């Protein structure tokens, strides 16, 4: 075997639906024995925020792929309906139900798997400063770091993705 492969990801989105792709890729790469680091920046930092992590939502607005509650219906939810009060909570509940019914782990469980398997969790220092987030607001294992640290890590990566 050659030396370990490395995956460097940027997680920039703070919605429930967009929390999954970087965490699935990270945990899978770790399962293949790769070194993995994720740079959580801007809204993506919510995925490392103790409180916000528990309240991630799916937005039906500006999301043309948002399906109706019954997946087999051939219609999408129009923005004007998605914008009604309570709709993000409905959309979020629906997605959580789909995930549960498919035996998928929750975002918190995936993050735990990532941490257990040694995935580096870089918390964007600039985002922390701009949004007034402190180290104690973040989950265990989150390391405050700037773009320089991430680019240094990414410069030796075999795969780099921005999510």
């Amino acid at each position, binding site marked *: 075997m050659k030396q370990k492969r490395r995956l460097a990801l940027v997680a920039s989105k703070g919605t429930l639906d967009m929390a999954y792709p970087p965490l699935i890729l990270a945990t899978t790469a770790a*399962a293949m024995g790769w070194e993995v680091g994720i740079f959580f920046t801007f809204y993506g930092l919510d995925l490392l925020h103790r409180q916000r992590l528990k309240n991630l939502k799916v937005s039906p607005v500006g999301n043309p792929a948002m399906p109706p509650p019954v997946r087999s219906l051939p219609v999408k939810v129009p923005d004007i309906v998605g914008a009604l009060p309570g709709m993000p909570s409905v959309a979020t509940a629906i997605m959580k139900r789909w995930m549960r019914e498919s*035996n998928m782990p929750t975002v918190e469980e995936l993050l735990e798997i990532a941490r257990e398997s040694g995935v580096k969790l870089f918390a964007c220092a600039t985002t922390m400063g701009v949004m007034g987030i402190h180290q104690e607001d973040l989950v265990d294992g989150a390391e405050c770091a700037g773009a320089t640290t991430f680019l240094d890590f990414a410069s030796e990566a075999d795969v780099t993705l921005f999510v």
Partner: protein
Amino acid sequence: MAPSGIKPDQVLDCRGLLCPLPVIKTSKAIRSLAVGQVLEMLATDPGSKPDMLAWSKQTGHELLEVHEEDGVFRFLVRRTR
């Protein structure tokens, strides 16, 4: 690959689970075996077949057998290191 009659040292049931769980659980389980021992993993996710081939290629653990019957994939993996 056809059933080879190899007896696994451990069986891991991932039926009903989707990516990334079968691969994550497999990599966890293989570490609990001794080098040379064989793990049997069962899965129903059709993506698990290419994924297990890729996992084997990436990790170096040997995929001895892939067998599909009635929508259930059966993988035999030998720990190599």
